[in-house]
C-alpha cells in the first residue's frame, strides 16, 4: 500500500503538484484511519492531505483515476487486483468474453447485441437516468467502437473520440428532448422548461461520457500499467498551459483560472500600494493616542500615503497568430485597471484603433473582447500583421499623449511579415514614457527567427518578457505595479 502511495505521489510531483514530505506522511497516516474499501472516502482522504489548491484538483483526479482505477485494498492494505467494477452477471458484455487475460481489446462486432439494441439501451439509460445501465452501455460501446490496440503509448483521447462519434450523443439529446416535448400534456413546453430539460439531459449525457472515459482509462491501465499511462495522460496545470497553443478545453480552463487570478492580483496590488511606505506623521492622531499613555507619544501615527497612480497605454496585436494571447492579456489589464489612473487600450493588425470605450461600457471583459473583435477597425490593407505601419499610425494620432507618467505595454510576437519595422517609434516611446514593456507570447528560442523582428524593438524597450503562461503573466503584472 505504501509503495503504491509512494509512486502515486511521485506521479503527482511530476505533474507539477508541490507535494511535500509532511503531506506525504499525513496521507500515509490518514490511510490508517479509513476504510480502504470505500473508494470515494479513499479519494477524499488523499485529496485532503495531498492537494492544497483547487487548480491542482483536476491533475489529482486524473492521476487518481489512473493509479487507483480498479484496485481495491483489503484490510491488510494489500492491493487486490480483482476486477470489482461491478460487471454483473447478466451484463451483456460478459457474452463478448471481455474477462480473462487474453481478451481482445475491443474487438469490433462479435457482440451478441445489435447496434439497435445498444442504441435503445443507451436511450433508456439516459431517459431514466439509470447509472448501472449507463455503465453497461459505456463498456459495450467502448469494446465495440473504440478500436483499442494493445500496447500503443496513447492517452486514450482518440479512443474516446471514436467512441463518442459512433454514439452520436448530440442527436440523442435532441431526440429525447423531442420525446419529452411530445409527452408534455398537449401544450408546448415553455422555453424555461425546455432549457431545464435540455440541461438535465445534458448533465446525464455528460455522466455517460465520463463513464466511457473511465472505461477506456481502465482498459488502458490494464494494458500498459498505471505508470506508463499516467505519463501519457498528464496535462499541464492551468497556470502552465501555453496560451498560444491551448486547445478549446484548455482555453476554458484558462478562462476560469483567470478570473480569480485577476482578483488576487488586484488585491495584492492595493495592499502593496497601501503598505508600500509610510506617509508623514499624523500629529493629531498621535496626540490623541498619547492620551491613553499619559501624554507620552508611544505610538506615533502616520497619514496614509496616496501614491500617484500611473497611466498606462496598452497596444495589443490581435491578429490571428496571437489572438488568444491578446484576449487574455486584455482581460487581465482590465482587472487591474483600478490600479492605474487611466488605462487606454489600442489594438492593431495592420491598422490600429482605440478600444478604451468598449471596455468602459462593458461590465464583463469577455463582452468587451468580443466587441473588439467585431467592431475595432484594425485592418488597413490585407489583415496581416504590420507592426511598422500600426506603430507609425499610433505615433501620428496619439503619440503626443505619452508623457513621463505613462507606461507603455506592447503585446505581440513581432512577426511582421517582412514589413518595415519602424523601430524609431518605440525608441520615441522610450524617450517620452516612464517605461516601455514588450510582452512576447512566443518562446524566447523562437525570437528573431523567420519574420520575427523582436530584436529591433527590444533595443528600445525597458523590458522584454516572454509571457506564454498564466504563471508568467501573473508574475509580470505583479512586478509591474
Amino acid at each position, binding site marked *: 500500500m505504501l509503495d503504491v502511495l509512494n509512486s502515486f505521489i511521485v506521479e503527482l510531483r511530476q505533474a507539477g503538484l508541490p507535494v*511535500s514530505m509532511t503531506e506525504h506522511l499525513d496521507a500515509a497516516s490518514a490511510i490508517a484511519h*479509513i476504510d480502504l474499501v470505500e473508494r470515494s472516502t479513499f479519494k*477524499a482522504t488523499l485529496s485532503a*492531505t495531498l492537494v*492544497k489548491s483547487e487548480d491542482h484538483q483536476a491533475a489529482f483526479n486524473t492521476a487518481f483515476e489512473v493509479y487507483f482505477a480498479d484496485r481495491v485494498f483489503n484490510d491488510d492494505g494489500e492491493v487486490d487486483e480483482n476486477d470489482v467494477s461491478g460487471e454483473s452477471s447478466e451484463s451483456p458484455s460478459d457474452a463478448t468474453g471481455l474477462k480473462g487475460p487474453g481478451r481482445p481489446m475491443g474487438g469490433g462486432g462479435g457482440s451478441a447485441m445489435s447496434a439497435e439494441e445498444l442504441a435503445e439501451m443507451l436511450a433508456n439509460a439516459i431517459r431514466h437516468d439509470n447509472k448501472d445501465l449507463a455503465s453497461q452501455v459505456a463498456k459495450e460501446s467502448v469494446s465495440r467502437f473504440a478500436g483499442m490496440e494493445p500496447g500503443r503509448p496513447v492517452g486514450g483521447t482518440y479512443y474516446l473520440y471514436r467512441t463518442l462519434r459512433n454514439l452520436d450523443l448530440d442527436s440523442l439529446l435532441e431526440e429525447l428532448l423531442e420525446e419529452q416535448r411530445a409527452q408534455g400534456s398537449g401544450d408546448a413546453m415553455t*422555453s*424555461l422548461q425546455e432549457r431545464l430539460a435540455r440541461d438535465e439531459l445534458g448533465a446525464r449525457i455528460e455522466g455517460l461520457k465520463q463513464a466511457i472515459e473511465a472505461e477506456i482509462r481502465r482498459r488502458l491501465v490494464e494494458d500498459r500499467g498505471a505508470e506508463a499511462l499516467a505519463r501519457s495522460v498528464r496535462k499541464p496545470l492551468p497556470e502552465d498551459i501555453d496560451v498560444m497553443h491551448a486547445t478549446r478545453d484548455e482555453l476554458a480552463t484558462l478562462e476560469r483560472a483567470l478570473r480569480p487570478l485577476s482578483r*488576487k492580483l488586484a488585491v495584492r496590488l492595493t495592499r502593496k500600494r497601501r503598505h508600500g511606505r509610510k506617509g508623514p506623521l499624523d500629529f493629531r492622531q498621535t496626540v490623541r493616542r498619547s492620551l491613553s499613555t499619559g501624554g507620552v507619544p508611544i505610538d506615533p501615527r502616520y497619514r496614509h500615503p496616496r501614491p500617484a497612480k500611473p497611466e498606462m497605454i496598452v497596444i495589443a496585436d490581435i491578429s490571428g497568430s496571437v489572438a488568444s494571447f491578446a484576449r487574455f492579456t486584455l482581460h487581465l489589464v482590465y482587472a487591474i485597471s483600478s490600479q492605474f489612473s487611466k488605462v487606454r487600450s489600442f489594438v492593431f493588425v495592420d491598422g490600429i484603433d482605440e478600444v478604451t470605450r468598449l471596455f468602459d461600457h462593458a461590465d464583463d471583459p469577455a463582452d468587451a473582447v468580443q466587441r473588439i473583435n467585431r467592431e475595432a477597425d484594425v485592418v488597413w490593407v490585407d489583415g496581416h500583421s504590420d507592426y511598422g505601419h500600426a506603430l507609425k499610425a499610433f505615433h501620428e494620432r496619439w503619440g503626443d499623449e505619452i508623457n513621463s507618467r505613462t507606461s507603455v505595454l506592447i503585446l505581440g510576437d513581432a512577426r511582421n511579415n517582412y514589413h518595415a519595422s519602424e523601430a524609431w517609434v518605440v525608441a520615441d516611446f522610450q524617450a517620452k514614457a516612464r517605461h516601455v514593456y514588450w510582452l512576447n507570447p512566443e518562446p524566447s528560442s523562437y525570437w528573431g527567427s523567420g519574420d520575427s523582428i523582436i530584436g529591433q524593438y527590444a533595443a528600445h524597450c525597458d523590458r522584454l518578457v516572454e509571457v506564454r503562461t498564466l504563471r508568467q503573466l501573473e508574475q509580470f503584472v505583479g512586478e509591474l505595479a
Partner: protein
Amino acid sequence: MTEKETWRFENSAQVAEQLAAVDYLADEAIASTVFLADRLAKPVLVEGPAGTGKTQLAKSVAELTGARLIRLQCYEGLDESKALYEWNYRKQLLRIQASQVGVGEGSSDWSELEEDIFDEAFLLTRPLLEAIRATEPVVLLIDEVDRVELETEALMLEVLSEYQVSIPELGTVKASQIPMVFLTSNNTRELSEALKRRCLFLHVGYPDVDRERLIVETRVPGISGELAEQIARIVRSLRAMDLRKAPSVSETIDWAKTLVVLGKETIDEKDAVETLHILLKYQSDIERASAELTGTRR
C-alpha cells in the same frame, strides 16, 4: 498521540449522518475531511466560492459535538494583540500605582511586583489563546484567513501545528484538549505554503443538483419537493451560464424562501424572471440570465 485517544467520530459516514442531523448536508469530501481532521488532529483549510457554507460547516460541527465555537474574524491589519493575547496595560499601570500608594517606598520588591503584573490575571486572552486554554471542548473558526497579511499568518502557525502559544513572560501555554480548527478562505490571495502544509485542504464548491435540492429541502421548511427540484435545476442552468457571479447556495436558499413566502408551488417563466434579482447581483447577469431562460437570446 501515543496513548489511546477518544475520537469524536467513528467513520466518515457517521460524520455525514451527524451533520445531516444538524441540517448540514455534507458530501463525501466534506465528511471525510472533518473525520480526518479529528483523527489526525489537524486544522482544516476550507476554500471555495462565497456562500457555499464554509463558515456554516464550522458552526455545524460545533453544534453537533456540543462544543463552544470561538471565532476569529480576520481582517487586514489583524495583529498579535487581536488574535493571540495582549497584556492589560491599564490594569498593570493601576497595579503599579496601587502598590506605590499602599506600600509607600515599595522599591525593594520590584521583582515581586514584576512577577505579579505579568500574571495571567493581567492577560487579555484573544480568540486563539482562548481556544488553547479552554478546558471544555471548543471549535475554533478562523474566518477569511486570506484577508490577513502574510506576516500575520505566521502568528497562527504555532497554534495550528502544536496547539500551543508561547508567551515570553509566562512560558508556553499548551492546549489541554485539542480543539477542532477550521480556517476559511475566499481565495483572494495565495496562502503561504507553511500554512497550507499544516492543514488539511477542503474545497467546497457548488453542490450538484441532487444535493442542492436536499439542501433547499432541509433549510427551507414547508417547501414542496417539486419546487425544490425546479429550483435546483434552474440554479444549475444559471451556473452553467457565463455570469460574472454565479448564484451561491445561500442565495439559492434565499430564493427558495422567497418563493415559499410568495406561496408558489411551481415556478413558471414569469416568476423566475421576476425574482432573479435575489439570485443574481449584477444587472448585466440578470439581463443575460432572463434572456437565456426565456429563450429570447440576444
